C-alpha cells in the first residue's frame, strides 16, 4: 500500500526519468565504445577494453580541427541567432503592428523547408552573389538563418502571458526603457533566452545537411564524421563525443553546487525570485 502511494506520488518523476534514460541510452553506448579496442578500423563490435584512445583523444589533427571549427561556429551562431530571435519575439508578442502576420509566416516557413532545399538554394545564392567566400562565413550565415526561427518560438512561448505590470511598475519608478529591459524584462525571460541559446548552439553543432552545401572546404565535426563513416569512424570520435557530453554535465554540476553554497550563505534563495516572478506579485 505504501509502495503504491509512493509510486503514485512520484509517477511523473519516474516517467520523466525514464524518458531521460531513453534520451541518454545512445550516449551510454557511445561512451562504452570509446573504451573499445578494435583491431581494424570499425568500431561496431566489442573487442576488448582499453583506455588508449582516452590517453590520446586529439591524436587525429583533422578531427580536432573540425571539432574546434564546430565549437566556434556554434558559439557565434548561438549569440547571433539569440539576439536576432529574441528581438523578433519581443516585437511579435508585445506590439500590434501592420505586417505582423507576414512576419509570423516568415518565421515559420524556414522550419517547414526541407534542409536539403535550404542548403542547395543558399549555395546558389552565395555563388550568384559572389560576395561571401564559401567557408566559415557562409556556414555562420546559414546556421544563424535556420536557428532564428527556433529562438523566436522558444522565447515567445515564455513571453506570452508574461506579467507586463512588472515593467510598468519599473517605469513608474523612473526607469527608462533600456534599464527596464535590462533589469526587469531580461531576467524574467532569461530562462527562455538561455534555452533558446542552448538550442541554437546544439542545432548548429549537430547540423550536417545545410553545412555540407555551404562549407566550401571548411570541415565541421558532423562533416568529418559523415566522411569518416566511409572508411570506419575512429574511436577518437566516440572519445570526443563523450568528452563534450561529460564536460558540459560537469560544468552544470559545478554551477548547481555553487548555487547550493550561495543558498546556505543566505537564507534568501535568489533563483526562487528569478524563476518564479509571478509569485512575488499579486495577480
Amino acid at each position, binding site marked *: 500500500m505504501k509502495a503504491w502511494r509512493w509510486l503514485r506520488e512520484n509517477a511523473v*518523476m519516474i*516517467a*520523466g526519468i525514464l*524518458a531521460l534514460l*531513453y*534520451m541518454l*541510452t*545512445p*550516449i551510454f553506448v*557511445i561512451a562504452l*565504445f570509446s573504451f573499445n579496442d578494435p583491431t581494424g578500423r570499425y568500431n*561496431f563490435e566489442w573487442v576488448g577494453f582499453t583506455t588508449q584512445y582516452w590517453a590520446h583523444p586529439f591524436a587525429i589533427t583533422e578531427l580536432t580541427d573540425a571539432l574546434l571549427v564546430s565549437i566556434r561556429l556554434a558559439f557565434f551562431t548561438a549569440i547571433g541567432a539569440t539576439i536576432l530571435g529574441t528581438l*523578433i519575439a519581443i*516585437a*511579435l*508578442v508585445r506590439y*500590434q*503592428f501592420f505586417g*505582423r*502576420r507576414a512576419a*509570423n509566416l*516568415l*518565421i*515559420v516557413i*524556414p522550419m*517547414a*523547408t*526541407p534542409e*536539403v*532545399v*535550404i542548403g542547395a*538554394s*543558399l549555395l*546558389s545564392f552565395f555563388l550568384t552573389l559572389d560576395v561571401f567566400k564559401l567557408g566559415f562565413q557562409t556556414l555562420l550565415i546559414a546556421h544563424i538563418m535556420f536557428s532564428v526561427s*527556433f529562438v523566436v*518560438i522558444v522565447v515567445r*512561448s*515564455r513571453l*506570452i*502571458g*508574461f506579467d507586463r505590470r512588472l515593467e510598468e511598475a519599473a517605469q513608474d519608478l523612473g526607469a527608462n526603457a533600456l534599464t527596464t529591459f535590462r533589469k526587469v524584462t531580461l531576467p524574467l525571460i532569461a*530562462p527562455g533566452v538561455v534555452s533558446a541559446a*542552448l*538550442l541554437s548552439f*546544439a542545432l548548429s553543432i*549537430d547540423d550536417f545537411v545545410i553545412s555540407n552545401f555551404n562549407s566550401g572546404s571548411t570541415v565541421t565535426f*558532423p562533416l568529418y*564524421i*559523415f566522411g569518416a563513416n566511409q572508411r570506419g*569512424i575512429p574511436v577518437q570520435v566516440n572519445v570526443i*563525443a563523450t568528452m563534450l*557530453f561529460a564536460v*558540459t*554535465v560537469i560544468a*552544470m*554540476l559545478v554551477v*548547481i553546487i555553487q548555487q*547550493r553554497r550561495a543558498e546556505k550563505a543566505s537564507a534568501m534563495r535568489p533563483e526562487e525570485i528569478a*524563476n518564479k516572478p509571478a*509569485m512575488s506579485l499579486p495577480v
Partner: protein
Amino acid sequence: MTSVRRRLVPYGLLAPGLIWLIVFFVIPMYYMGELSLKTGTIETGYQMSWAFSNYTDAISQYSTQFFRAFYYAGVATVLCLLIGYPLAYAIAFKAGRWKNLMLFAVVAPFFTTYLIRTIAWKTILDDSSPAVSVLKTLHLVPQDGRVLATSAAVIAGLTYNFLPFMVLPLFAALERLDRRLLEAGKDLYASATQTFLKVTLPITMPGIVAGVLLTFIPAAGDYVNATFLGGTNQAMIGNVIQSKYLVVRDYSEAAALSFTLMAIILVALIIYIKFAGTGALMGDEEEAE
C-alpha cells in the same frame, strides 16, 4: 512624436532578424521557385518554360512517399508528446535544484551528432540485441521478426531525434505556469487528473502547439532516419528530394517536390492552428492580451 516612435519600435526590433531571413532565406527560395518551373539539365542549362507539369508529376508519382512521411511524422509527434509532457512536467515542477541539469540532459544528445547517435541506435536495436529479445519475449515483436529496417525503427528514430524539440517548448510553457492556479485547481476539482485536464493542459496549450509543430515539421521532411534505420519501401519524401537533388540531379523536379512539401505543411499548419483554437503561431493577438 512619441506615438510615431512607439509605432516604429516593433519594426526596429524586427528589422535585423527579418532582413537576415529575407536575404538569406526568401531570396534563395524565390530562386528555387523559379527553378521549379524550368526544364533542362545541367548540361544544357535550365530554361523557363512555366513547367507546372513538374508539380503534377511530383505529386502523382510520389504520393506514397508523401503519405508515408506525414504518417511517420504524425505517429512520432504523438509519441514525442506522450513521452515529452511528463518529462517537461517533471523538470518544471519536480526537479528542484536538478532542474537545469535535467534540462541540459535533454539537449545534450545533440552534441554527439546525429550520425553517431543513429549508429548507436543500430547497435541497441540490432536483431540479436537484448532490447529486441525483450520485445520478442513480450510478444511486441514476432519471434522471427526484427526492429531495424522496419517502419517501427524509422518512427522510433524520428521520435528520439525530435524529442528535444517537443520538450523545450513544453518546459517553457509549464515553467511560467502560476503554481497558485494549480493549488486553486486542487481546491476546486477533487482529483489531480481533473486539475490537470481543466487547468494545466489548457494553460500549456501554446507550448503543446509549438512543440507539435517543431516536432512534426522537421520530422516530415527528414530523410536521415529512413536512410539509416529503415529498410526497403520505407523511404520518406525527404529521401526522394535528397536523391533528386544529389543523385539524379533533376533540380527542377527536386525544387517542385520541395515546394509541394512546404505547401502541404503550411496548409496543414493553418488548419491545425484554427483547429487547436490557440493563436500559437500565426494569429496570436488573442493570446498575447
